[in-house]
């Protein structure tokens, strides 16, 4: 890599470096190029799981003091299989969560 090429990269990165700092960067960058050369490049196009974005599993929990009914209805607990007991259990769990000022735990977390 020429000095001009490195200068361009440094400018693009928004860095303002003195000569010593630039020399250090040049050495480190050569190491990074060697590391990057170890990576396989020909992968199946559909090999994308590393890009998966996990959106929040439940809507944000209500702030302390706000009603709990909406969130409780959307985040069934294990007791949901017993229809009669469920509303009571949900309300109790929600109250505990609110009392500690913590957001509702994601559904996936509960299942495990």
């Amino acid at each position, binding site marked *: 890599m020429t000095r001009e090429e490195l200068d361009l990269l440094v400018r693009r990165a928004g860095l303002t470096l003195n000569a010593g700092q630039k020399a250090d960067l040049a*050495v480190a*960058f050569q190491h990074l190029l060697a590391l*990057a050369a170890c*990576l396989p490049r020909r992968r199946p196009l559909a090999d994308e*799981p590393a890009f998966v974005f996990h959106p929040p599993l439940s809507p944000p929990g209500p702030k302390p003091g706000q009603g709990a009914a909406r969130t409780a209805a959307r985040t069934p607990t294990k007791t949901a299989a017993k229809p009669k007991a469920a509303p009571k259990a949900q309300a109790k769990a929600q109250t505990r969560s609110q009392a500690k000022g913590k957001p509702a735990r994601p559904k996936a977390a509960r299942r495990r």
Partner: protein
Amino acid sequence: MRGSDVLHHLSIADAAGMIRARRLSPVELTRSLLDRIERLNPRLDAYLTVTEPQAIAAARAAERAQMQGALKGPLAGIPLAYKDIFDTEGVRTTAQSRLLEANVPAADAEAVRRLAAAGAVMLGKLATHEFAIGGPAFDLPRPPARNPWDTERFTGGSSSGSGAAVAAGLALGSLGSDTGGSIRFPAAFCGIAGLKPTAGLVSRRGVIPLAPSLDTAGPMAWTAEDCGLLLDAIAGYDPLDPASVPSTPPPGGYAAAARRGIKGLKVGMLRRFYETDLPATAEVLEQMAEAERLLKELGCSVATADCPSLLAFNAVNRLIICAEAFALHEADLTTRPEAYSRAFRVRVMAGGVMRATDYIQAQRHRRSLAAELNALFERFDVLVTAATPGPAPRLADVTLDDGLARPTYAAPANVSGGPAMSVCAGFAPNGLPLGLQIIGPPHGDATVLAVGHAVEEASGSRSRRPAL
């Protein structure tokens, strides 16, 4: 006793037993360690901040609970200290950087909060490489920590103060962080036990990040059993850490699991790492052969495990660290690069000029490598390899581009996300400790601790302390 009958060299398990039996006062124990810190820290530079008044107050509270028979658990009254990237309420948390010299967090990191809730006594904050990567650095306001076995030697990093403090008897245990080996290197070079837990098992909330997709917080202590005791307190789901995962502790907890024995376990030796990919020194090769013999004697079946090259794991680990760390520090690196140590700049700044596609390809390859490594756990319960290629080098011989220029044995477990620990399995002829690395499948932390504990017991390594 696994440690010693000298107060500052007690293991956590032994001290907890004595406190429970009212044979040891938490105040006496804390004072003993504070005295030792005052005497030895000028030589070791392990502590950046000592919180004596708070430590005495916490020890007194533990003593009152002791007298009332109301101890909170095995960590009640146990003096610990934390790497200075863990937020501590009202106590300066600097990451050993000029940039955070005046940083006083308003709340404890979640792991620190859990230890305080368990009754632990915080002695202070420990040295680290700047922002957990830039070190050892001599161009910062505070010097790097020194190895208690030989103060001219490197502690390993980045949890450098944690390794030094625990080995020297300046704390009974500590919290460190591991993004590319930062718990296991100092554990190996300082002759202690250090566990990088399964990714997501311990909350990183309130821990100053280095590379968020790799950062893991974990325990460091004199023994694997002590790491289990610390893990019992800090493990658990944290809804406010986006990387936290739900988990179920083993029956009786991690410390109990560490003592359960390892007869019948299937151990895979990752020989290619230390024999071919990064050949270890003769003393490490000898130690690995001895470890294999010990494991067989303990009732394990041992076979060679093959996996991708160390170079591939290292490339993925380093590229991700560089890119993510630069992104976190971009604002300061572009406006005041001179505020950082040279070591930090050398290791991070190139992340600003690497291509986005290299970072993305590293993340994609990470998944493949993790899958390949974790597939080995269909055949083996744990994998064993060296922790470092040799004993601690001289501080003067550590180069700034270490880690970029040379692979490490630590990277595979950072890439896979599984637990990995270094325990002291013996000593080189020059008296320096040698670490053995045990790698487990994700959520196999209990088995890793059990193997670590068994190796420590069988090797007899826990009876030797640095002469200071």
